[in-house]
Each structure stands twice: as C-alpha cells, then as structure tokens.
C-alpha cells in the first residue's frame, strides 16, 4: 500500500453531466489539440496491401468485416515507427502469437507472398517516416557433443528513414528469433534503443491483451507519477458511482477499489468488477500515458455496456483533447459509431472502412458530414 487514503465523498457524483459540461467547457475555451499524423500508407503488412489512410483526424475509427485488417492498421502504426521503446514495438509485433514458436513468429511477421512490408507515415508538419520490414529465414548447423543439430534463425530487419525536407541517414536494427530444440529465443540488436531517434508516445490497448495485469500496473505507475489519480477515478465512477478511491496494495500489487459504503462491506479488487470497468480503466490509464502522442484501441466497445459508452466516449474525448492525443479506434459497433458521431466535435472525427479487394485493400473515408447523412438521415449501416 502506498500513501494515505483520501476518501473524497464530495466527488462521488453522477459523472455524465459533469463530464459533458467539462467537455463543453473545453470547446468554449477553444482548446484545440493538434493532429500528429496526417497520412498512413501501408503496403504488404499482414493482410493490408496498398492501404492508404489520408486526412487522418484527431479521432480515427476503423471499421470493416472480420479479417479485413482493422487491427493490422493499429499494428502498422507501431511497426511504422509510432513507439517510444523497443519492447513496446516487439510486444505489438508478437501480440497475436499465442506462443513463442518460430512458425508462429514467422507467420506473424512475414507478409503473405511478399518479402518486404513498407509503411509510410506522414506527419502534419509534412515530414515523413518510411519504414521497411523484412524477414529472412536460414538454418545453421551446430555441432556439440559429437551431435549435429540444426538451428533455425528468423531475422527481422527494420529499416527506417526520416525525412523533413531532406532525407536523413537510414536507421536499421534487427531482431533474431532462434529455434533450437523446439524452443524459440529472441535476441535483439543491442543498439536498438539509441537508434530510435524519433520517439512518439504511443499506447496500445487491445482486446487480446487487456487482461495483462502487469501491463496495466506499468501504465498505472506512470499515472501516479504524473498525479492523475482523479482522472482515473472519473472513469471508475462511470461504472460504479459509489467509487471514491483506489490504491495499489500488497506485494503482488493488486488494485483495490474503495466505495463510499465500504464501512458496511469490504472493498473490492478491480479484478472483481466486470470486464467493461477493467478495460475502461486500462484505456484511461493508457490515454493518460499517451500525452502528445497516439492511443490505439482495438475493439473499444468489447465488454462495455452501451449506456456506459456515452459517458466513456465523452471522457475519452475530453482527455484526448486535453492531453493532445490522436486516437485510433477499431470497432464492430454501430452504437459506438453513433455515440462517437454525437460526442466528437464536428470535423474532429473520421471513419475509415476497410475491405479486402483484389490486389489491394480498399479504404473508404467517411467524414463527420457523411456520418450525419448516412447515419442521421438515411440510418444505414456504415460498418
């Protein structure tokens, strides 16, 4: 347990109106967050081929059918350079792999039928970051104890070049995946860290990883350091208005949530609450750590009841504006898109619908005006 508990029952209030008013206040005060990324071009990365996302906005939703490449768009942003440390980069590249085996890693990294993945990010100031990822496999023969063994090696090379008028020297790093005795080991370029010159604050919350307690705690530490506990309390109150505080307690660092009625019953751990509250808490933590950067959220709606979505999207909108965060959100939910249309300020949001086409991905851009027409007037499904 760290620090003294401060139970603020005065703040135990219904959140929605307060948040909405705060959101409106932001607009009244003319707070304008800038858009960091302006364009994304992805070629031969996972299922994406020649996918262009132009005129990116402050809030970007990605929709499409299963296997259309929505999550790959988020991953492409990371692979294309939106990360601040190499562990985050590797974690994202391997997030889908259930187990660290070479075949799995190979399939995750190597684009189908292609040798090179190319990702180009254009920033709002006109500068560009071009990244090429290649994967090559080879076999080495090892001899030890009079036995000959095969060692399979998969090398991923990341080559990036940053240009802001004139092109800089290309930066290259490698990551090796070695399989020996059916075990796969990862070795990375020791100079990887200092080669990452353009650090872009980025957080990635995906459905497959939101249950990683160590990840949430890591992000939460950053929130405590920046004294942003109150902002997280607001999220918890969306789901349980009785919440008055939370703390990280015990050697195994559990998150304990205190309610105003805790004199009658024991406080609950965050894990004891539903997935929606847990996920929203994680997203909020990640948002607070993505200041002046980008936040990637995969299937935001999963686990969150549609009534809570209104308050949560309002919260996320306010936080992202204040912290200057560009949002990239994938979704299957029409309800979420309707909430988004009504929550985000005019001109602040855009929806990209992606579909697998012959030889290339088809990306359709739907701006706020289109949303008003298609959803507000015609009521048609834009997913």
């Amino acid at each position, binding site marked *: 347990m760290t620090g003294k508990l401060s139970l603020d029952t005065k703040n135990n209030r219904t959140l929605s109106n307060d948040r909405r008013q705060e959101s409106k206040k932001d607009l009244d005060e003319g707070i304008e967050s800038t858009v960091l990324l302006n364009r994304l071009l992805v070629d031969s990365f996972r299922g994406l081929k020649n996918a262009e996302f132009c005129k990116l906005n402050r809030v970007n939703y990605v929709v499409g059918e299963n296997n259309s490449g929505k999550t790959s768009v988020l991953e492409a942003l990371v692979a294309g350079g939106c990360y601040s440390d190499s562990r985050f980069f590797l974690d994202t590249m391997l997030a889908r792999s259930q187990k660290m085996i070479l075949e799995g890693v190979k399939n995750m990294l190597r684009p189908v039928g292609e040798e090179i993945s190319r990702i180009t990010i254009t920033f709002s100031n006109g500068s560009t970051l071009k990244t090429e990822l290649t994967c090559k496999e080879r076999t080495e023969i090892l001899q030890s104890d009079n036995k000959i063994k095969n060692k399979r090696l998969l090398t991923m090379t990341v080559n990036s070049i940053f240009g802001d008028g004139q092109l800089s020297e290309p930066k290259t790093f490698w990551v090796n995946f070695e399989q020996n005795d059916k075990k796969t080991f990862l070795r990375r370029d020791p100079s990887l860290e200092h080669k990452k010159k353009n650090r872009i604050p980025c957080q990635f919350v995906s459905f497959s990883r939101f249950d990683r307690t160590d990840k949430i705690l890591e992000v939460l530490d950053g929130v405590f350091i920046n004294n942003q506990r109150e902002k997280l309390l607001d999220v918890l109150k969306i789901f349980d208005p009785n919440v008055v505080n939370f703390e990280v307690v015990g050697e195994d660092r559990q998150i304990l949530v205190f309610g105003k009625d805790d004199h009658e019953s024991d406080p609950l751990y965050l894990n004891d609450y539903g997935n929606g509250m847990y996920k929203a808490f994680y997203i909020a933590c990640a948002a607070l750590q993505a200041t002046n950067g980008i936040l990637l959220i995969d299937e935001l709606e999963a686990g969150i009841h*549609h009534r809570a*979505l*209104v308050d949560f999207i309002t919260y996320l909108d306010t936080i992202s504006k204040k912290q200057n965060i560009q949002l990239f959100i994938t979704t299957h939910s*029409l*309800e*979420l898109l*309707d*909430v988004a249309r*009504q929550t985000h300020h005019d001109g602040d949001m855009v929806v990209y*619908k992606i*579909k697998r*086409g012959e030889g290339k991905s*088809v990306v*359709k851009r*739907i701006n706020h005006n*289109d949303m008003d*027409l*298609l*959803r*507000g*007037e*015609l*009521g*048609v*499904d*834009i997913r």
Partner: protein
Amino acid sequence: MKIIYLFVEGNTDKFVVESLLKRRLKYRNYVNEKDTPKLLSCHIPKYPGANGQLERRGIPSFLYKDDASILLVSANGKEQVCSAIRERLRVAELQFGIANEDISIAVVLDRDAEMNDEVIKSKLLKQAGNNRLVIEKDILTCEDVRYGFSLCIIPADRKGTIEKVVIDIASKIHPELTNEAGLYKKAIEEKEDYRKYRNKWASDPQIQSFYADKVQVGAISTVLKPDSSPGIMINDILITEMDIDQICELPSIKRIVQYLEDL
C-alpha cells in the same frame, strides 16, 4: 440479376409506382434482409441509433422478381432527386468498397406545369451538375463510374402531378365518389374564403391547382380508407380493385407502365 435504383419525387409517386410494379409486373417485396441482395440490403436502415432516435426517415421499398431487384426511393421533392441518387450510390459504394456498375438508375418525375419534356430534362441535368453527377443520354456518371440511366415523366398526356394519375384511376372505379370529391376540390380551389389556405400551398395559381388535386385525392382516400394515408389507399384499394390492364390503358399512365416494363 439486374439491380435498379428507382427514384421518384414523393411518397404518392412511390405508392403508385410500387403498386404498378407489383400488380402489373409481378414484383414482390423482399420480406427478409437475408434474402435481399447486398446492393439493396445496404440501404436497410438500422434504427434506433445510440441516440435513441425513433423517427424513421427515407426508408426505401425493396422489390424483386425473377431477374431483377429494385430499390424504390422517394426523394422527398423534385429538387432532391439528384442528391438522393448521389447518397444512395455512396451507400452502395461503401458497402462494396468499389462502385458497382451493375446498378442502373431510373427516375420518374412529375410533369408539373411543363409540357416540354426537354425542358424538364435540362432542369434535371442542371440539378445533376450541382450534385457532381453527369447525365448524358442513357448514362449517369458519378465519381468517374458510369451507370445506366433512364427517365420517365408523368402524367404523359397533360400538366400536373402524380395525383392526376390517381384521379384518373379513381374515376374509372368510383366515378361518383371521384366526382363529388372533384366538386369539393373545386370549392376549395375557387371560393374566396379559402384563399388563405391556397396561398399557404403556393403563390402561383397553376401550382395551387396541383395542390388542389391532392385535396381531391385526400377526399377520395378519406372515404375509401378513412384510417389511412392516401398512399395506403392507392396500394391497398385503388389499384387492386380495377383490372390492371384497364388501368394500364389510361392515357396518363400508359407511358410509365411501358417504362417500368422496359427497365
């Protein structure tokens, strides 16, 4: 399968056209979304949204027969026809990622006060330009994609709107009722006491006469189907009560029947 997006000016036009398609050409309504081709089903509204919107607007009709499916759209006014075309092509394009040239565009316009078909067409071309559409003969181009295009103007034989057609049909089946409703219309149209109402319809006396036709149709409808709108009366009673071949021989309606057959 042919896919036709058929645009009409208003709801009364939609009911008449839909009735003719069903009675004369044996089209049927799709009753389940899963049976509907994607180029049509993408126009099925998903309500209510998260905002709790209950109002249903712009719901098209979905019709089919052996080799063709029709999306029948009311544009809610003559001036909205081209924007409605553009909107619906946008919806289809979003559904498939690419524009689909298999779609044909058909438009049925009321003649109103203009007897020269070319004048009506030129007005439509101008409206198309304002909506970034190009219409040349039987081709409509939207975002560089070409679609088959055709236009029909009703009534064929005289000035007026779709109500003239409805009155023609009603006069064949219920002549006395149509006549009585005509006298009522005449009174509304001519009595000084009603000028204040007529002026709310339109300032042009000729346009007022078209609105007066709506009054007559409303009066007929009130008797034939007191609890429903004129549109329901057209679909449920008027066209079903008369031999469809007789209806189709009426001078005011002959052209549109031929047009729908040729789609």
